């Protein structure tokens, strides 16, 4: 295997080459401790506060794609072949402020200033990516940034004002005018550092591999069956920085083109395991518009930019928010490994708490989501203490088809947060099959949910509340799909005051 141990990325117009470095070092540690670029702050080191937000650029379809990312959850080698933009980059050495920064000053949007650079970077990504964002889009773009001082109003105002300010004297790509032309230089530079070889880094007892072909991956997986497979590092990062676990061998899947890409075969959608949650959800929102609200409530934008759908599924957390909807859609998991490819129903993939039907030499290659019938009644709901970036108390998804006699002939009910794994409620499904979708059936099904689950009590919710949510979310689904109640709001997001 033809490998390299040099990581290359672009920072402030320069190609930076890293050699002989600790591959488990986070971008945040590197920026603050090695480069002394201290504008990027550490607030939590777990991707929940956004003080370390930076923007990462990639060439996608010959355009520059810029995305906000938490630097605390990015391992240095994951930068390979990419463009890095930090808060210091925006001023490009000039005394004048970037329009995003100036708007923040004009709107009195900083108080203590510690979260501010992170907000600036999230706003910069928004500024570059969207023309006239509405309040929902602004909120979504700032969903991963916490501010304890301002109450957010002035920051939201800055998100509107930044578009009204003129471009500065820095490199043209920092601003909005003629973006395609302005980006040309950067695209060429990115082309020059495009990874051609696999990465193999061996540093002080830590091995880090980033294969570029499936064959290499298979070989590595056989050689190092206990290796940690790394996708977006939104969970593995916590093992390292919070649990302080040492991971001797890491195999990063980001350079595998075969795991990227979303394909529509007509009857189903294939989502490569390394497709980011942002990209996966963007296309799922097209295919399954009913899941839009759930998607918006999934983590934060920077986490969705970093995390992958494959990682969410493979990790198998009982509170992973993609799985209930994927279970409802009868998603299949495509595994690959030494024994070749195999498919299994997502439901069968989960054996127990953080236990999956996956051999040590296997990996998740893709998710196969069948397109549901046009008339399928579908919904996904999440309840958590906070709307933005929180972990579910309960996440639920429902899918239901009625035959010509208005009887239920297909039904899926799936929950997160109700058991040790994301799980369908088979008893409730059984109760409903063949029955009309009416109040009586609903109540029978609600009763059956209690037979299927004995949820835990923890810091997010008591067992009783979880059960009540599981039942009441099904009642909400009923009200939205069957009851004649379209004239009134059935959830908070239906209110005009909420979704302005």
């Amino acid at each position, binding site marked *: 295997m033809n490998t390299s141990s040099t990581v290359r990325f672009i920072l402030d117009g320069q190609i930076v080459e890293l050699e002989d470095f600790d591959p488990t070092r986070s971008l945040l540690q590197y920026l603050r401790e090695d480069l002394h670029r*201290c*504008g*990027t*702050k550490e*607030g*939590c*080191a*777990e991707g*929940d*506060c956004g003080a370390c937000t930076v923007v990462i650029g990639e060439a996608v379809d010959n355009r520059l794609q810029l995305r906000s990312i938490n630097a605390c959850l990015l391992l240095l080698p994951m930068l390979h072949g990419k463009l890095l933009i930090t*808060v*210091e980059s925006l001023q490009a050495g000039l005394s004048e*402020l970037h329009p*995003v920064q*100036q708007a*923040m*000053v004009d709107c*009195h949007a*900083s*108080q*203590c*200033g*510690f*979260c*501010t*650079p992170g907000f*600036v970077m999230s706003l910069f990504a928004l500024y570059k990516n969207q023309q006239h964002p509405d309040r929902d889009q602004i909120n979504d773009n700032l*969903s991963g940034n*916490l*501010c*304890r001082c*301002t*109450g*957010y109003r*002035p920051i*939201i105002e800055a998100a509107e004002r930044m578009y009204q300010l003129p471009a500065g004297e820095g490199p043209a790509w920092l601003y909005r005018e003629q973006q395609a032309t302005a980006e040309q230089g950067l695209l060429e530079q990115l082309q020059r550092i495009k990874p051609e070889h696999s990465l193999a880094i061996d540093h002080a007892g830590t091995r880090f591999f980033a294969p570029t072909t499936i064959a290499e991956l298979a070989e590595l997986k056989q050689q190092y069956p206990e290796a940690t497979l790394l996708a977006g590092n939104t969970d593995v990062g916590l093992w390292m920085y*919070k649990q302080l676990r040492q991971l001797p061998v890491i195999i990063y899947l980001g350079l595998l083109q075969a795991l990227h890409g979303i394909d529509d075969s007509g009857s189903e959608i294939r989502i490569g395991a390394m497709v980011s949650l942002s990209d996966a959800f963007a296309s799922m929102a097209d295919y399954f518009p009913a899941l839009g609200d759930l998607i918006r409530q999934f983590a934060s934008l920077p986490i969705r930019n970093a995390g992958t759908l494959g990682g969410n599924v493979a990790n198998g957390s009982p509170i992973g928010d993609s799985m209930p909807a994927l279970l409802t859609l009868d998603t299949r998991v495509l595994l690959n490994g030494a024994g070749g490819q195999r498919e299994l129903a997502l439901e069968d993939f989960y054996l127990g708490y953080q236990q999956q039907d996956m051999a040590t030499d296997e990996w998740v290659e893709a998710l196969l989501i069948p397109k549901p019938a046009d008339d399928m009644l579908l919904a996904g709901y999440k*309840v*958590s*203490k*906070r709307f*933005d970036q929180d*972990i579910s108390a309960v996440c639920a998804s429902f899918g239901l088809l009625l035959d010509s006699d208005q009887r239920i002939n297909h039904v899926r009910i799936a929950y997160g947060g109700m058991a040790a794994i994301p799980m369908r409620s088979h008893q409730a499904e059984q109760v409903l099959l063949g029955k009309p979708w009416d109040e009586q059936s609903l109540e029978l099904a609600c009763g059956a949910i209690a037979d299927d689950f004995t949820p835990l009590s923890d*810091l997010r*919710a008591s067992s009783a*509340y979880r059960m*009540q*949510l599981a039942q009441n*979310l099904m*009642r*909400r689904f009923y009200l939205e799909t069957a009851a004649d*109640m379209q004239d*009134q*709001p059935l*959830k*908070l997001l239906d*209110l005009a*005051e*909420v979704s*302005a």
Partner: protein
Amino acid sequence: MNEAIGQPTRLFSSALPHESARMHVAGSALFVDDITVAENTLYVALVPSEHARARILSIDTSEILASPGVVAVFAAGDIPGANDCGPIIHDDPILAEGEVQYVGQPILIVVAETYMQARIAARMANIEYEILQPVLGLQQAYNQQSFVLPPMRLTSDGVSQQLADSELSQTGEFRIGGQEHFYLEGQISYVQPKEDGCLHIWTSTQHPTEMQQVVAHMLERDANQVVVEMRRMGGGFGGKESQSALYCCATALAADLLQCPVKCRLDRDDDMLMTGKRHHFAYRYQVGYAPDGLIQALQLKMLVGAGFSADLSGPVATRALCHVDNAYFLAQSDISVYCCKTNTQSNTAFRGFGGPQGAFATEYIIDSMARELGLDPLDVRKRNFYGRQQRNRTPYGQVVEDNVIHELVEQLETSSDYRQRRQAIAEFNKQSTVIKKGIALTPVKFGISFNVRHFNQAGALVHVYTDGSVMVNHGGTEMGQGLHTKVVQVVAHELGIAVERVRISATDTSKVANTSATAASTGADLNAKAAQQAAQQIRQRLIALMADRFDLEPERIVFAGDYITAGEGVWRFDEIVQLAYQERIQLWSDGFYKTPGLSWDMDSLTGNPFYYFAYGAAVSEVAIDTLTGESRLLRADLLHDAGNPINPAIDLGQVEGGFIQGMGWLTSEELVWNEAGRLMTHAPSTYKIPAVSDCPVDFRVELFENRNVKDSIMRSKAVGEPPLLLAFSVFFAIRDAIASVADGKINPPLSAPATGEEILAAVDYCKERRR
């Protein structure tokens, strides 16, 4: 006394950006962790207790010492002086000795070459414990008479009689949770040993002088050997008033023993596990009242969750006691407070300092009375407001002389269309079966000054350099509240120069001595006054010089717009400064200020503890989902009294920020401890402060036209803490929405925080009883 009320006189006032705003957005504003450290700097991590209460039988540090990069481990026995960092009572060990008192209590200091090495090694301690029965929960502590301080009681003579005589009476119980500060910048200290046993400390603290003192005591040094420097904090909110001390001490100890620069930056989880929070309260009350809603007598017992040590719980309890009245006249009251000692983090100062918890009680009680009476809670609130000339004495004896709550609430009631919206909400709720809306208007009256009289003093230094630039130093600390910006504005105004000429240097115990904590909202009141006085002295010297040199009448000399003018004569500021230097005039000055007319008797709990009161009111409209308990703030209208604001933009920021922070406390911010006393919500993944979507789409915030009747700085009013209480309106709007499921006739048993689970339980309670 009220002649100034209603006069919309604006003195000097300007909405300048925060003095550090450009640096904040550029990422160039330096916080402690951004200071370039010496090459030989070592890093500290702390080993926490794993048990809520246990005797330490043995400590084996061999694995720690064998861990890569580890240089030393220190325990309580290594402390040369006092093993204590308690701000008032000496019951706060720096390192646990003999017995641990909460999960997370630091036991050992691990020093290593890197931050990660220290953290990894800190997990390798082998400590043998004999586990003891912990005291957990307020009721358990109360039952066992486990208190950190003696109970306090403020009572009037006729209260029992009046309770018996009142036509109507109500009893009840409710709770309010604590709150994690979640300053974005965690606790951090960096210490460099200097010559002759001296230390230089950079630390994120609201109280540099106290840090200086505790470190001196710990190392048996004189205060003059310890310099504490503090440029800015990434948020404080009270969490760095006393509780920066432990981390400062741990760092200083390691630096001094090893004679090496040492940094300690707490990981977020450690920070949340180790440090104290806002005090949680449990209330029990009996209220006697008239059919029109007038409160005749109130008996209130408050159990306060102090945690394992006293810390600031005494003054917090005192402030709670002094705010039970909020904006209401309590003719007869009997208020008792118990600071319960439990085996949990030692709770501490947090924006409002007990005031919000005190005021919440009466708001809750009035809300409950109104529902029982079938009246709009706003009408019952108004019925009980303090009077102007009568009914104006607080339970602790101070007469309210600056009352503007009537006109302020009236203005807000009108501008927010409160009555029409209440009607519209009632209509909406009739049509809407799942989603219910609610509305509430709640007032705020908040006392300004430290209850402890001698804290109400401040000092400042103003240097004018020969080029006309000015350096100001004062005892207050900048934590984002805009204190330095206001002080710059005041000094620039006094000297008649552009704000760009004025720079504020880091707060530094070697410049201004014996400072008070930047707390109790008094930062600008005290320090800007001191700086103003210093600047005025310099101006007086320049005036004297000019009067003498140019033969001018001193009264005719005006300092404005970077120029000094007298009739036809015009001089540049720096021109006169040069002249003064040549003439050997002192171009720098100190300034000192103490708040006049304060008194407080700690035994009788009476006096005049407050220089003045700040007022405000808010209307919140919320929606709840009766299937899930989820809630949303739909619209908020805030009207707040900042007096004559020095900087209205900064004050608006404090009002909005305080409101949203208060809303978090009352809704989504839930602290959960498990049965063993371990805090389970110790990171932003599990502890949820408001995020951007929690800011209401319709958010109308205004400052009330007023000027302080007292001679405060520029007639402004303190604005740091009072707006937090505006968030009560969110909580009571939620309670209103819940009550609507039973046509507003049943009092929902809602405690704070009103999480989805809490709301849904209250909804179900009301549903079950409406039939």
